[in-house]
C-alpha cells in the first residue's frame, strides 16, 4: 500500500518537470498572471464579510475554474476536507449560540476558508513545476529559486532511493510495514532503519549536486542562464 503511494507520487513528481509541452486544456494564461489571480482570489476570500461579496468571489472562482479547466482535481478529497472542516465549525457555532442560528454563520465561515485555499490548488493543477519555479525566480533571489528548482527536480530520485532503503529494510525484517507503524513503539525502528539512511543519502546527493554546480561555474552570473527544457 505504501509502495503504491510512493509510485504514484514518484510518477507525479517526475511528470511535473516534463509536462511543459502538454497542451493546456483551458486558456493559456502567463504563469505570473495566474499566480497573481490565485493570490488575489485567495485574499478576497479572507476579506469577504457579506453573503453578496462571498457570492461574487465564488462566481469569480467558478469562472477561473471554467476558463483554466484544471485536470486531475480530486473531488472526493476536496469534498471530504470541506465536510470535515464544516462539521467542526458548525458544531462549535451551535454550542456557542445554543440554537441552529449558528449553522448559517458556520457554513459561511467554512466556505470562506475553503475559498481561501481553492485558487492556489487550481493554480497548481494548471501550471507545471518548471514554470512555477521560473515564475518564482522573479520574486525570489536566484540562489533560492535554484535550490527550490533543484530540490523539486531531484525529489523523485531521492524518493526512489528512500523506497529502495525501505524495501531493503522490510526484507531484513524491520517492523516498519504500515500495520507495524500503527503501534507507536515501532516508530524508533522507522527512524533507525529508514530516516537516518535517507538523511545520509540526502546529504550525499546535496553534496554531489553542489559540486556539479560549482564545476559548471554556478553563481558566476547573478541571474540564471539555463533552465530545464531550454
Amino acid at each position: 500500500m505504501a509502495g503504491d503511494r510512493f509510485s504514484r507520487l514518484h510518477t507525479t513528481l517526475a511528470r511535473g518537470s516534463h509536462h511543459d509541452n502538454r497542451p493546456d486544456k483551458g486558456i493559456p494564461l502567463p504563469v505570473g498572471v495566474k499566480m497573481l489571480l490565485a493570490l488575489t482570489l485567495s485574499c478576497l476570500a479572507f476579506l469577504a464579510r457579506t453573503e453578496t461579496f462571498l457570492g461574487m468571489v465564488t462566481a469569480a472562482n467558478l469562472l477561473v475554474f471554467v476558463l483554466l479547466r484544471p485536470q486531475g482535481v480530486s473531488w472526493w478529497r476536496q469534498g471530504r476536507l470541506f465536510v470535515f472542516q464544516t462539521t467542526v465549525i458548525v458544531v462549535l457555532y451551535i454550542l456557542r449560540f445554543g440554537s441552529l442560528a449558528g449553522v448559517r454563520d458556520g457554513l459561511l465561515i467554512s466556505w470562506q476558508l475553503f475559498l481561501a485555499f481553492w485558487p492556489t490548488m487550481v493554480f497548481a493543477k494548471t501550471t507545471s513545476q518548471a514554470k512555477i519555479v521560473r515564475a518564482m525566480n522573479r520574486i525570489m533571489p536566484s540562489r533560492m529559486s535554484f535550490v527550490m528548482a533543484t530540490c523539486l527536480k531531484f525529489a523523485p530520485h531521492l524518493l526512489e532511493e528512500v523506497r529502495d532503503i525501505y524495501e531493503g529494510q522490510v526484507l531484513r525484517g524491520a517492523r516498519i510495514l504500515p500495520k507495524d507503524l500503527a503501534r507507536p513503539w515501532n516508530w524508533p525502528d522507522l527512524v533507525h532503519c529508514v530516516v537516518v539512511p535517507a538523511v545520509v543519502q540526502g546529504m550525499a546527493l546535496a553534496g554531489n549536486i553542489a559540486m556539479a554546480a560549482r564545476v559548471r561555474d554556478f553563481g558566476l552570473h547573478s541571474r540564471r542562464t539555463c533552465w530545464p527544457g531550454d
Partner: protein
Amino acid sequence: MMKRLSARFCEKFRLPLKDALFLGFCAVFAVLTRVVLRLHLHISGHAMIIKVFFLMLARGSTPCLYGASFTALLAGTAAMFLGFAKAGPLIIVKYLVTGIVIDAGAFLLPMLFRSYVLCALVAGAASSTKFFTAYGINALVGMDPVVNLQRSLLEAAGAVVFGVAGGLMVPMVVRRLKAYDVIK
C-alpha cells in the same frame, strides 16, 4: 526593490550551496511526506509531527543559525504553489513562525539537539504557534471570537501532542548522524 533587498540579505547570511540544498530537500520532504503517508487520522494537528521533525532536523544537521526558518520558508512556498496548502498564501506564515521558534530555541539552548527533554520543550513551543496562526486566520475571515478561541485551542492541542512526538525523534537521528561523522 524587494528582490534586491532579499538578495542583499542572502549575500550577508550566505549558506554553502550543499547546506542550502540539504535544507531544500528537508523542505520538499516536509511537504511530500504528508502526501505519501496520508495520515487520515482526522485529528487536528497530526501533520505537525512531520513539520516539526523536518524543521528541527534541518536546524540540527546544519550549522546554519537560521536553518529552520529557511527550510520553513521553502516548505511554505512549495506547499502553496504545489497546491497542498489549506490556508492559501498564509501557509508560508504558518511554516515560518514554527521555523523561527525552532531557530530561537536552538540559539538559546546550545545543548538542544542532544537532549530529549529540551527537544520536546522546543517542539511543544513551536507547535503551539498553531494556536496563534489558526486564531489569526480565523479572525481574518471574521469568525466569532469565542468559537475561534475554541477551534484554535482544539487545533493547537492536537498539534502540540504530535509536534512533541516529532521533536522526540530528532535527538535520535542527530546522535546517529554524529556517530557516522556525517555532521560535526
